[in-house]
């Protein structure tokens, strides 16, 4: 029995080695599977004077890293050389490009300059979700989804990590989960704290707003970087985004307990808020095209809607996500 089964085993091992090695070599010689060369398409008259940076989306495979494009007065120009991202943001001469590392199994954040050349790189510990840069280009914030550290291992419990970066030195300033939080003047802490969706205050990059998720609540918090502290402002606000003049905050408001949201806008001073005319569920950190107009991704496309609550959503760019307002043409 020994020799016959031995021969069969040897044959099997040789066959498996041959097939496995052959397949891997063929795959290695094939095209890079991490990045798409898809191109965004402008859509119609709304564009007028919009000036944006976007990430290209391949509708057949929306999670692939997309190239970075600039859209200026209806013209679509490819801006990035090698830069390809899952999420991008840019302001004040510095940008963050979050995406899949070349290995295809790790995520990374590249910091890039005004000519979209990578100047620094950091490993990310999870799936890219949100990116923001302060208006002066000093600080950046990244949010990633992390699996496997929910303390109860509940099937749907996913946690997030939000890190503040110093974009000049490329160093981490801190992780929001480690900052002190107060609510109604008293210290506030729980094991299940998760933070996401940072937006920096225009004109004061030491200050920011973000979402704090704990239990079933989603609090708007206002943070101060030098003191590494945050205070809770109100409940029911996710992915806040400050208008260029700093007076209004666009955000997504959760419907019930599910994964459905409506866009709303609140006054940063009075915290009074109203809905906008978009009635579909939007899961994005909204961007402001100007002080009156929101821009956001739905499906594989970008739409705009007036912040006032009037009007109606309009298609802006096809096959794009991660919209970034750029200042007047240079």
């Amino acid at each position: 029995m020994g020799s016959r089964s031995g021969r069969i085993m040897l044959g099997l091992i040789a066959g498996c080695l041959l097939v496995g090695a052959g397949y891997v070599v063929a795959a290695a010689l094939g095209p890079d599977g991490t990045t798409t060369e898809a191109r965004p398409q402008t859509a119609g008259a709304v564009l007028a004077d919009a000036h944006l940076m976007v990430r290209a989306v391949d509708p057949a495979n929306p999670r692939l890293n997309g190239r970075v494009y600039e859209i200026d007065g209806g013209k679509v120009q490819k801006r990035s050389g090698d830069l390809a991202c899952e999420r991008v943001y840019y302001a004040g001469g510095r940008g963050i490009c979050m995406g899949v590392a070349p290995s295809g199994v790790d995520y990374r954040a590249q910091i890039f300059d005004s000519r979209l050349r990578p100047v620094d790189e950091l490993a990310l510990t999870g799936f890219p979700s949100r990116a923001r840069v302060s208006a002066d280009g000093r600080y950046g914030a990244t949010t990633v989804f992390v699996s496997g550290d929910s303390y109860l291992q509940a099937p749907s419990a996913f946690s997030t990590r939000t890190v503040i970066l110093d974009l000049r030195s490329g160093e981490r300033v801190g992780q929001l989960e480690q900052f002190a939080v107060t609510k109604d003047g008293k210290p506030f802490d729980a094991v299940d704290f998760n933070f996401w969706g940072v937006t920096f205050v225009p004109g004061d990059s030491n200050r920011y707003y973000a979402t704090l998720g704990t239990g079933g609540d989603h609090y708007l918090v206002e943070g101060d970087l030098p003191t590494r502290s945050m205070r809770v402002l109100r409940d029911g606000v996710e992915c806040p985004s400050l208008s260029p003049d700093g007076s209004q905050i666009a955000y997504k408001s959760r419907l019930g307990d599910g994964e459905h949201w409506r866009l709303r806008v609140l006054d940063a001073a009075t915290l009074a808020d109203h809905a906008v005319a978009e009635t579909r569920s939007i899961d994005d950190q909204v961007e402001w095209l100007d002080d009156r107009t929101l821009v956001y991704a739905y499906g594989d496309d970008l739409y705009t809607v007036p912040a006032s609550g009037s009007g109606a959503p309009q298609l802006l760019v096809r096959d794009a996500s991660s919209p970034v307002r750029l200042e007047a043409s240079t």
Partner: protein
Amino acid sequence: MYQVEASKALLKPRLWARQSARLRVPRNVIMLGTVSLLTDISSEMVATVLPMYLIFSLGAGPLVFGAIDGTYRGSAALVQVLSGFSSDRWRRHKEVAGLGYGLSAFGKVALVAAGNTVGGVGAIVAVDRVGKGIRTAPRDALISLSSAKDRLATSFGVHRAMDSVGAMLGPLIAFGILFLAPARFDAVFVVSTLFAVLGLAVLILNVEGRPQRAPREGAPPRLRAGLSLLKDRSFAPLLLAAAGLSIASVSDALIYVGLQRTIDFDPAVFPLLYVMTAISFMALAIPVGQLADRVGKVPVLIGGQALLFLVYAVLLMSSVGYLALAVCLVALGGYFAATEGVLTALAGAVLPDDLQASGIGILITVVSLGRLVSSVAFGALWFAIGLQSAVLVFAVALAVALVAATPLLLRAQRAPANG
């Protein structure tokens, strides 16, 4: 001490001969270890890349991944009791285990052929877990029946060490492939399938299905006999002790999260915690098994459980240096080496030969239910009174469980099988 060493050196040739005789592990155990090694390479390759594959290639949201991950963990639950009893009843441990390994291998093939939808991946993952649930009890029964009763712990130590080598190699191979062929998950699935097929082939061609202690005569056991294990004079105390100890032990996943919150290290080094624990486990599993065969399984089991106190102590420290972290991870590896395999070996020694798989299936289920209770309780305590107080509560619970379990385990070990 010097003299003792010197006289030992004189005795060395004879000691060495005796030692190697004692190290000898039945061929069947090595073969079953090889099957597990190959199968674990295959499963861990897939488990490593599955989150990335789902989110990145299939465009699933992180929440979908969470749900599939839950299926991955949960779907093996009670299958093992059933498969354990059936393999005793039919006296076909190898065939039932083969069905389990076959299902997992089929899952890998299906992943290559039809793994391009989120629902498909979910179903395949569930099939894979059911396969794991089916094979565990009959496989452990085969290990037990292939070994002399006084070498059980060594056999299980060897098997568990080989198993964990596979679990270490799997992710390395997967990353290696993706390094050569970025984002080509199909290549990972193809290679994973090949390893699963090789594992199945070793089982079919090289594992003896009727090892030396396998019962051949007399009527096959009835369901009532399987159920009566629950009140068996020696097995019931063992089950009770295992349940108590598993409830009082914080799961490793929670320990890692706790360490992370305590230590405040770079999250990027998180995977290193698993690796260090696995290396410690791999290095200790065989010597600890030999020790258990020499000095008795119960003292080793109790000592291994007590290593958790070291881990709890580190979790209670207000600032943890790298030395304390290393001690904690080595202790954790030692705890795994001295508990799971040794407990199964003790069950193998206590159980009648014709109910090995049934008993082991019941034991695994009891232990995993105990772990579930422990995780939920620890999570709730952590949320309610904080990490350190929760650890203190569990340390007290572990002390109580150890005091209660020791006489139960000794009684199990003393009572004659089938008494």
